[in-house]
C-alpha cells in the first residue's frame, strides 16, 4: 500500500518537473539574452541603439543603429498580415461555415500540411520562383525585396491563422446561428453580422499569433528579403529584418565583442516584441471566452 502511494507521489513529482522544464528553459534563455545583450549599452546609448539609422557593426568606428532592422521586421510582418489575413481567415470561414464534410476532410489536412513544409523550402520557392517574377513585373533592379518576404511569410503564417480562426468560429454556439436564421437573416447576413463579430476576438488572436510567427521567422527572410540594412521606403526595396541580421552575423562575430553583444540585444528586442504579441493575444482571447459565456 505504502509502495503504491510512494509510486504515485514519485510520478507526480516526475511530471511536475517535466511541466516546469519549459519555464526553466524560458528563464534560462531570458537570463542569457539579458546577460549577453546588456553590455552593448555601455558602448551605445539605448536611444542610439534603437533609433540609430546605420548598422555598420564591424567598421571602425562601429555603428550600432538597429532602426533599419526593426522597421524591416515591422514592414515585412505587416505585409505578411495583408497576405495571411484574407487567406487564413477566408479559408477558416469557408471550412467552418460553407464546406461540406467531404471538402473539409480534404482541405483541412492540406492546409495543415502547409505548416509542415520547412522554412528553407519556402525560401527556395521565393528565390527561384517569386524573385524573377517580381523583378520582371515591377521592373526592379532586384526581386529580393520586402514584398517578396511578405508574400512568403504570409503564406507560411496562413495555417496558423486558419486553424486558430477556425477554432474560434467553432466556439461560436450554434444557437447564435439558429437564432439569426430564425429571425429571417440570410446566410451571408448571419456570417457577417453574427458569427464574425462573435468570433472577432478569436480571429484577432489568430492574426496576432500569425504575426508573431512571421516576425520570428528567420531562414526565409535571410534568403528572400535582400539583406540590405536600409530604412525601407516602399515594399519594393530590399530590407534586412532583425532575425536575418542575427542569423547571418552571429557565426562570425568575435565572441564577447561589441558586435556579439549587439546581436544579443537585437534578440532581446525581438523577444520583447513577440512576448508583447503573445500577451495581447492571450488578453483578447480571454475576453472572447468570457463574452461567449465560456469559462475564462
Amino acid at each position: 500500500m505504502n509502495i503504491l502511494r510512494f509510486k504515485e507521489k514519485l510520478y507526480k513529482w516526475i511530471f511536475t518537473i517535466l511541466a516546469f522544464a519549459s519555464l526553466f528553459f524560458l528563464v534560462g534563455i531570458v537570463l542569457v539574452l539579458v546577460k549577453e545583450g546588456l553590455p552593448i549599452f555601455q558602448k551605445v546609448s539605448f536611444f542610439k541603439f534603437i533609433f540609430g539609422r546605420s548598422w555598420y557593426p564591424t567598421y571602425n568606428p562601429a555603428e550600432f543603429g538597429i532602426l533599419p532592422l526593426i522597421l524591416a521586421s515591422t514592414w515585412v510582418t505587416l505585409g505578411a498580415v495583408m497576405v495571411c489575413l484574407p487567406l487564413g481567415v477566408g479559408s477558416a470561414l469557408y471550412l467552418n461555415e460553407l464546406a461540406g464534410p467531404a471538402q473539409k476532410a480534404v482541405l483541412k489536412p492540406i492546409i495543415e500540411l502547409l505548416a509542415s513544409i520547412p522554412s528553407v523550402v519556402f525560401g527556395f520557392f521565393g528565390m527561384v520562383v517569386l524573385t524573377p517574377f517580381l523583378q520582371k513585373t515591377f521592373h526592379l533592379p532586384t526581386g529580393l525585396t520586402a514584398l517578396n518576404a511578405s508574400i512568403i511569410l504570409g503564406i507560411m503564417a496562413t495555417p496558423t491563422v486558419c486553424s486558430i480562426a477556425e477554432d474560434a468560429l467553432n466556439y461560436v454556439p450554434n444557437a447564435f446561428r439558429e437564432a439569426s436564421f430564425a429571425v429571417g437573416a440570410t446566410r451571408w447576413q448571419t456570417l457577417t453580422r453574427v458569427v464574425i463579430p462573435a468570433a472577432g476576438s478569436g480571429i484577432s488572436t489568430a492574426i496576432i499569433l500569425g504575426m508573431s510567427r512571421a516576425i520570428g521567422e528567420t531562414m526565409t527572410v535571410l534568403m528572400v528579403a535582400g539583406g540590405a540594412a536600409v530604412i525601407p521606403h516602399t515594399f519594393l526595396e530590399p530590407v534586412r529584418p532583425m532575425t536575418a541580421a542575427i542569423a547571418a552575423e552571429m557565426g562570425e562575430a568575435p565572441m564577447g565583442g561589441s558586435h556579439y553583444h549587439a546581436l544579443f540585444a537585437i534578440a532581446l528586442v525581438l523577444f520583447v516584441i513577440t512576448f508583447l504579441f503573445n500577451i495581447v493575444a492571450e488578453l483578447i482571447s480571454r475576453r472572447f471566452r468570457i463574452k461567449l459565456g465560456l469559462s475564462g
Partner: protein
Amino acid sequence: MKFAKLIISGALVLGIVLPCYAEKIVVEGSTTVLPIAQKAAEVYMDRNPGDNISVRGGGSGVGIASLLDKNCNIAASSRPIKDTELDKAVTNGVDATANIVAMDGLAVIVNPQNQVSKLSKKQVKDIFMGVISNWSELGGSNEKIVVVSRDTSSGTFEAFLTLVLGGNKTRSDALMQASNQAVATIVSGTPGAIGYVGLGFLSSAVKGIEINGVMPSKDTVVSGKYPVTRPLFMYTDGKPQGLVKGYIDFILSDEGQKLVEEEGFVGLRDKK
C-alpha cells in the same frame, strides 16, 4: 573467481578509457576553409586509423575565439587574427601561430548578360561605395547597379574590405548575403548585379571581371598578378605538434595541396 571478475572489469575499464588516449583534435572556424579542412581530415584519418580529427564550421571569428578558449586545436580562418584577439590570446596564454595552408582569389562577378568585362580596382571600389551607381557610367547599358556583398562579419568581406574598399563603407543598400553561394545565385539571376566570391565559386552562371586588366584565375593568383588575393590560415597554439603537426603537414604536402585545388582553391606548391 573474484580475481577473475576484477581482471575482466579492469580490462573493460581500460578498453573504454584507452581509446581516449589515442590522439584527437578539433578543427573549427571559417566556412571558406571548411571544405579543405574536411577533405584533408577524411583522407588523413583513412591513412591513420585511430587518429581522430573532427571539423566544425561556425566562421573565422568563432574558430579563433574557440582556439583562444582552448576549445579547439586548430582555428581555420579566412582572415589574419585581429589585434583584439591577439590581446585576448596573450591574456589566456595562447600563442596564436599562423599557418598558411592555401591561397584564394576573390573574383568580382557580374551577370553574364552584362557588357562590362573590365574594371579597375578603383572602379570596383567606387561601385561598392555607391559613387558609381549605373552601368552606363562604365560603358554598359543604362541599368542600376545592384551591389551584392558578403555579411560585414564574414572573413571574405573583411578580405574585400582591406584589399579593395580600403576600409571604406559599402553603400547601405547593398544586399548582404550569408554565403558565397548566395552571392553567386543572386548575381546569376539579377541583370544589374555585381558581387564577389572565392575563386571556387566561379562558374558559367556568372561572369568574372578583369581587374586592372587581369582575369581572376588560379594562374594569375599564383603569379601574384591578380590584385585581390588572400591567404587562408590555420591558427594553432604555438608551433604545431603531434597530430596537429601531422594534419597540417599533410595539407601542405603535394597530396594535400592537390586536395586544396580540387576544392577550388589555389595551392601553395605552384608558388614560385
